[in-house]
């Protein structure tokens, strides 16, 4: 049987299986509830509006007191909200920790503990109600009708670097993930976006992103979530189909090489999954262009982003599914990939835009964000390349394991043969 025939037969096995269609259903569910639900056309900002959103520029004159106030307030109640994995974790410090936090605050503000207690705000002066805003900032809300206490300022003589350092210590004391970490402090004082900046962002989305590019990144952000785990299920299901001894022997005794067989199967999973993704990408291209009818957009952005951004995740997820199933003949791959996905999802939730890093899930949960994207492009490319290569490596390893099993090692047919021979010798 030629390679192409083998590949097409494996494709048929994938698309006639229920796991594949459950994956498609999941993609549709995420698409409709997350991406399409909030889909709006691009609007050119008009001059003279009250707000254009938050910029990335930091007004330290605002950020420093706001950060100090927030820390003092949480210190007063001994309840600190941190987000080590995206979901809010409430930390309460023990006696030793409390004391140290008090010392840090005193050093930061130049006030004594008693003065800090007086300056501490009651509950209700929450930082964004415990939730980060989509653009990464925290809204500092003051309940109406209540007087604010005198705001805390930096101790005289303390430089901004010291402020950042001491806040960093506070963050470490809380176990990390708080808003007081160096990279998060800016969230306390984001300057509002100016009209010219908002206009520039709009121009970038229309001219650099060519409209669809801006939406495509958001599409990939949402689609990346199910696609980082479900291909493992599809691969595991396909590999498990041959588990029965009779079926395996029939396949293993064939002339086809282990690598060719593995590559055909792996390729079938990737082709089927990415086929579904590209169909959705095409559909969303049409929807986005229709919504932005007066603008001229790129027809290929959704496709190229899907291939560059989503395909590596699919490769590595399917690779884990194939490799672990081939090694163990059990569905353990589901749990392993599920655990990896779960941890990546929660770890990455703290950085919904711009925190590209080396995570399995790279997030860009914002329409546009061209500047952040360009700034992080090298990291994104490196990340995706590593995962793509990892996926292909897993495929090769799977082929290697299969070859060893066909030679009677790794508990394949060989073990049964060895037992049989041992018994025969004993009987003589």
């Amino acid at each position, binding site marked *: 049987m030629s390679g192409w025939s083998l590949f097409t037969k494996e494709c048929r096995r994938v698309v006639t299986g229920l796991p594949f269609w459950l994956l498609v259903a999941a993609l549709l569910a995420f698409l409709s509830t997350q991406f399409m639900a909030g889909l709006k056309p691009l609007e050119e900002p008009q001059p003279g509006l009250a707000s254009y959103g938050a910029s990335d520029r930091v007004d330290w004159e605002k950020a420093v007191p706001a950060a100090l106030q927030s820390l003092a307030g949480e210190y007063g109640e001994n309840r600190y909200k941190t987000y080590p994995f995206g979901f809010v974790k409430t930390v309460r410090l023990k006696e030793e920790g409390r004391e140290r936090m008090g010392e840090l605050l005193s050093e930061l503000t130049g006030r004594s503990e008693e003065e800090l207690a007086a300056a501490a705000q009651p509950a209700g002066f929450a930082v964004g109600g415990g939730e980060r805003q989509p653009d990464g900032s925290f809204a500092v809300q003051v309940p109406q009708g209540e007087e604010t206490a005198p705001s805390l300022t930096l101790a005289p003589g303390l430089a901004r670097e010291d402020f950042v350092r001491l806040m960093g210590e506070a963050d470490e004391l809380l176990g990390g993930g708080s808003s007081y970490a160096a990279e998060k402090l800016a969230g306390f004082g984001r300057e509002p976006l100016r009209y010219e900046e908002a206009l520039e962002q709009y121009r970038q989305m229309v001219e650099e992103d060519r409209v669809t590019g801006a939406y495509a990144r958001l599409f990939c952000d949402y689609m990346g979530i199910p696609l980082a785990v479900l291909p493992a299920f599809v691969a595991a299901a396909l590999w498990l189909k041959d588990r029965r001894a009779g079926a395996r022997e029939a396949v293993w005794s064939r002339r086809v090489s282990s690598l060719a067989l593995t590559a055909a199967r792996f390729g079938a999973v990737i082709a089927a999954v990415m086929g579904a993704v590209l169909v959705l990408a095409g559909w969303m291209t049409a929807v986005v262009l229709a919504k932005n009818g007066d603008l001229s957009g790129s027809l290929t952005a959704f496709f190229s982003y899907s291939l560059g951004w989503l395909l590596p995740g699919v490769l590595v997820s399917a690779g884990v599914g194939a490799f672990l199933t081939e090694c163990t003949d059990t569905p353990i791959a589901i749990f392993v990939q599920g655990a990896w996905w779960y941890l990546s999802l929660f770890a990455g939730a703290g950085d919904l835009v711009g925190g590209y890093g080396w995570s399995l899930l790279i997030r860009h949960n914002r329409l546009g964000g061209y500047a952040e994207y360009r700034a992080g492009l090298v990291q994104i490319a490196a990340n995706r390349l590593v995962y793509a290569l990892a996926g292909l490596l897993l495929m090769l390893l799977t082929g290697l394991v299969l070859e060893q099993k066909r030679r009677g090692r790794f508990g394949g047919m060989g*073990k*049964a*043969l060895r*037992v*049989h021979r041992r*018994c025969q010798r*004993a009987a003589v």
Partner: protein
Amino acid sequence: MEENTVEIRDLSVTYGKKEALSHLDLTVRPGLFGLLGRNGAGKTTLMRTLAGLLTPSGGKAIVCGVPLQMRAQIRQMTGYLPQDFNVYPSMRVEEALDYLGVLSGLPRRVRRERVPALLRRVNLEEQAGARVRALSGGMRRRLGIAQALLHDPRVLIVDEPTAGLDPEERIRFRNLLGEVASDRVVLLSTHIVGDIEAVCENLAVLERGRLLYSGSVEGLAERAQGQVYQVSVSRAQLEALKERFSVTAALQEGSGFVARVLGDRPPLPAATPCMPGLEDGYLALLAEEERGGEGR
């Protein structure tokens, strides 16, 4: 009605629109009874129905005086070795047998006695501690017969037990079946004629869900009386013969072949008539059926 008998009356079993068994009438008495037929004839369907795994769509069957509807009792009285036999692969042989004994409601005392005895009987004593997945095909079949005998059933139903076994294993299996058939009904389903010829006195032939024949092995063989010939031929002649007659065997002899041919007249002037065997009778019956005749 005798105690250990299986009475089948007008039994039909349908899978969706397909009638897998059609108005079957059959009586099976103690001893080894063969069930012969092509693939898809309905043998396995009949086996599964008598083992209490399928519900008939019509007719009835009484197993040792118990109607099929009383499933729990039927399953207690029948021991079943399926064609596709398997047990929990991660269990050890002794453990698997013991567990199946629990599922059959055998008390611990009885299991403690029977499990080792059966493993000895089927020559699996040394594999008692091995995992089921590590057993060879022959060993697995032997485990299969052991589990079927575990609760001392009155009716043993064995579906294609020797498929895939080497000649030595096959003989051993037949001998074992012969031993256990002394005081119970053993229903042996197979498409290997040699198995039935070796151990059964009586048999039935199924074809497309219907009963074509029921009676003695000699009786079926006699259906081909006067229709079996033997002749020495060259390769070219053999090919020509195959086009006009049913060649049931062709053994190489020197540069030519000795062909065994089924036909209503001598295929060649030099052909000599032979005593028909069971296979000849079976093939003659199928040929009659194809020509529109009816089996007895």
